[in-house]
């Protein structure tokens, strides 16, 4: 009897101690809050937008060059295009801050999903409940379908089912077969998002970039900016802005402006690495 009571007391003591001093099996960082953009980071890419013919730093192929060369920014003047949001691949580099919130399962307290909301233009849901991605034929959206997995304090997000979009606002395309892996890292009030974008149609290797944000605790509410569609310029119905291949000199102009060889302005994986400088020097171009 005494032994049984002692055993129960020891058991209770162990339970209390384990409750007091236990730690989760894996740590998770709270990303909740309004994260504001650092516009000075790659500033020309942010607000004003890239220059035509600038394909530097992109692992694009000839098909992507052809599409970008014939792309016309006037597309965004079409009523059908004016209120399109950026896709998830571009949104981190846009002018929009991101509000991150979480869905909590009321019984267990588990965080089942995160929302990355960019000015209500897109609300990305990152499922953390282990669900699979939908089949290939499921609809593609601007946000795509995202699942997340904790790796220590880093959240790794995998996104599929994206719509065709652009990676740079000079028309370099991304196909709807693009997938994206992101690593979200928080250091105090700084958020860093590393994107690894893979496109089997237009890239020869993954495109990688990181973007930083700062927590803004002062912005408690957002003012939605409603978009209104309106004819901007006079054109016949059905007009599609375009430029015929071979008729543009953007690459030459961009290269001349920044004193680059035209070949370097045309981008491609080879031009992205330090060895390329050596090649240019050997060719006497730099």
């Amino acid at each position, binding site marked *: 009897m005494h032994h049984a009571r002692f055993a129960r007391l020891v058991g209770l003591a162990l339970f209390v101690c384990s409750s007091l001093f236990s730690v989760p099996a894996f740590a998770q960082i709270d990303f909740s809050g309004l994260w504001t953009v650092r516009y000075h980071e790659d500033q020309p890419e942010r*607000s*004003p*937008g*890239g*220059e035509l013919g600038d394909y530097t730093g992109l692992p694009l192929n000839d098909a992507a060059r052809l599409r970008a060369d014939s792309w016309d*920014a006037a597309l965004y003047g079409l009523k059908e295009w004016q209120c399109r949001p950026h896709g998830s691949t571009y949104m981190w580099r846009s002018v929009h801050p991101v509000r991150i919130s979480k869905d909590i399962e009321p019984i267990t307290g588990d965080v089942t999903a995160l929302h990355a909301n960019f000015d209500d233009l897109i609300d990305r849901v990152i499922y953390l409940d282990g669900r699979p991605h939908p089949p290939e034929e499921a609809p593609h959206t601007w946000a795509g379908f995202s699942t997340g997995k904790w790796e220590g304090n880093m959240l790794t997000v995998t996104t599929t089912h994206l719509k065709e979009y652009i990676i740079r606002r*000079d028309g370099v395309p991304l196909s709807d077969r693009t997938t994206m892996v992101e690593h979200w890292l928080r250091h105090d009030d700084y958020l860093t998002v590393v994107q690894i974008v893979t496109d089997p149609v237009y890239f020869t290797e993954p495109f990688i970039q990181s973007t930083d944000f700062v927590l803004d605790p002062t912005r408690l509410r957002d003012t939605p*900016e409603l978009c*209104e569609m309106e004819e*901007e310029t006079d054109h016949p119905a059905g007009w599609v802005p375009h430029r015929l291949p071979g008729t543009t000199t953007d690459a030459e102009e961009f290269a001349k402006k920044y004193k680059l060889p035209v070949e370097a302005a045309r981008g491609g994986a080879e031009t992205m690495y330090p060895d390329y400088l050596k090649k240019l020097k050997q060719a006497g171009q730099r």
Partner: protein
Amino acid sequence: MPRVLMVAILAGVGLAGSIPLLAHHSFAATYFEDKTQTVEGDLVQFVFRNPHSFVHLEAPDEKGEMQRWAVEWGSGMQLSTQGLTATALKAGDHVIVVGSPGRNAEDHRLRMKSITRPKDGWKWNGQFN
């Protein structure tokens, strides 16, 4: 620190502090931003909206032929913060617009740099994203 560098840094801080929204298309890809064109004519329509407002006016081109010009301006939200409202301009107003010309000449499109209404001296010049 050289004064020029200090001014450049302060200008950069000022720009970084502004909050542009819905900057969809690249201005550099749409307009010749290093060029300036002036058009003078009568306002047909002022569309005060997001993502960008537009001033439409009838004015002659370089050849003297009358054209309808579409002048792109800031978003309604941005212009509101600068004190402008949807009633700032009215159809029939005679205005002088200075802007960056569009890359497609046949579009007769400009990116607003300044607009003046000589009748009462009303003027706007500034920046928008």
